[in-house]
């Protein structure tokens, strides 16, 4: 699984400039800019309703900001449809579970490979030949991911019957199967206990180590954020109120007030 995209000379992989997003009267994002650099983990924190998910949705093309620009690998993706953004190498996991519950784990991951598959409908129709060769080739990639995430045992289980933690892992696997240039994760650890968070943290760290994919992480667990993030951006009421290293953020009084509470994490 080598990176399919040529390395970028520019340090910034994903960059959002002055995003403005409104829903009726509500300003979900107000003049928000962020940069994600090569090989870093950027965490985004903020109170509920601050606009974190909205920002992720803008970055992945699901919401279209009213103003501002988003570039991925130097190309503007603001006008692109969701699937085109994904085609540019952006993968994400979801806040709730948005998993294909009618399919097995393998199939879910194979959907992630869709971007890299090329056979046409006619070839699928006459399955034996190109379509089967392609299936097998991509199945090998998927098996690597299955092994990496340690979900061999549930390979053929329908995900509808899996517990929450495993689903999250499949969700991550599916994003990894896309072989992305950047990975966005929206609250991957919500609803997990410490042990499971540790597991997932380990996978995230491994992803960064082995595959060197920059990650944008939205998370409410301060322990996770402070330990994993290289940099943190803080949103409140749709505005970015702070950005910096975990240390700086922990010391920032505005952040304390808006987010962490007076007594800190």
């Amino acid at each position, binding site marked *: 699984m080598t990176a399919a995209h040529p390395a970028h000379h520019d340090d910034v992989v994903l960059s959002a400039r002055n995003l403005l997003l409104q*829903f009726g009267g*509500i300003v979900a994002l107000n003049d928000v800019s962020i940069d994600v650099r090569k090989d870093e983990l950027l965490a985004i*924190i*903020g*109170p*509920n*309703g*601050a606009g974190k998910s909205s920002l992720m949705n803008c970055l992945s093309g699901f919401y279209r900001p009213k103003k501002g620009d988003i570039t991925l690998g130097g190309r503007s993706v603001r006008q692109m449809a969701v699937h085109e953004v994904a085609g540019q190498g952006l993968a994400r996991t979801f*806040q*709730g579970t948005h998993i294909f519950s009618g399919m097995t784990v393998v199939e879910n991951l194979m959907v992630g490979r869709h971007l890299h598959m090329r056979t046409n409908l006619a070839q699928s129709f006459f399955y034996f030949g190109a379509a089967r060769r392609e299936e097998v080739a991509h199945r090998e990639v998927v098996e690597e991911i299955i092994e990496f995430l340690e979900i061999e045992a549930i390979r053929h289980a329908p995900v509808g*019957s*899996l*517990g*929450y*933690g*495993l689903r999250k892992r499949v969700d991550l696997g599916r994003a990894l199967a896309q072989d992305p240039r950047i990975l966005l994760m929206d*609250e991957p650890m*919500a*609803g*997990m*206990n*410490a*042990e*499971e*968070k*540790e597991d997932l*943290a*380990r996978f995230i*760290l491994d992803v960064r180590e082995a595959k060197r994919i920059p990650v944008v992480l939205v998370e*409410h667990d*301060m*322990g*996770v954020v402070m*330990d*994993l993030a290289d940099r943190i951006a803080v949103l409140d009421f749709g505005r970015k109120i702070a950005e910096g290293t975990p240390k700086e953020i922990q010391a920032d009084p505005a952040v304390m007030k*808006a*987010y*962490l*509470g007076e007594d800190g*994490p």
Partner: protein
Amino acid sequence: MESPVLELNNVEVLYSDVILAVKGISAKVPAGQCVTLLGANGAGKSTTLKAISNLIKTEDGRVTAGTISFDGIDIAGGNPADQVRRGMVHVMEGRKVLRHMTVEQNLVVGGHMGSGRDARALLDEVYGRIKRLAALRHRTAGYLSGGEQQLLVIGRALMAKPKLVMIDEPSLGLAPLMVEEVYGLLSELKASGLTLLIVEQNTRVALELADYGYVMEGGRVVLEGPSTSLRSNEDVREFYLGLTVEGERKSFRDMKHYRRRKRWLG
């Protein structure tokens, strides 16, 4: 000790006639206390709650063994509506607001069992307890932020004038301040005499509020005790609170790549 409000005895729950999700658990919830149910993902916590309120019947599940008694009456397999009428409300996982309805309509629906006359008073009482909701009363519930939705579903449960509220993961996906606000509300409710059964992943806050706790794993209760003793249990500290033996918070950076075997499995 007086007899508990809710008592589970060797309850087994089966999904789709094939998946045994809860394999015989027993638990008690005494009146006026807060009991918490902890456990890893898939341990069967939500299933247990759904078995008590009998919402599992909507998911092709059923209680195959054991008894569930509420106020001394066996309620296993009963009608969910009767459970509410007896004074037990189940707040489901995932902030299930009625998305297309306004906040106030959500609350009104929550109080549909009471008489029309005290509805107004009850509504004001809930608005009084949860000030934030009052300001949001005409907003469409589906567009509220996560924390507001969580407050709304708790408020909606209160509208049924319950004796016992079962809450599934109230802190799920909430920011620290919001967690405090929700738990603040819960402790006020407890102080006002409400009995609480809380399923939680956020072990720290849950054990702070709760009087007693059960730890579930693989559909069984593997550990139980007063929350103070749970808090000092080594395994709970390591696996649920994420603390080192010395009481330091472990860093997520230097995770070992193997796991220590849990003592209760051995």
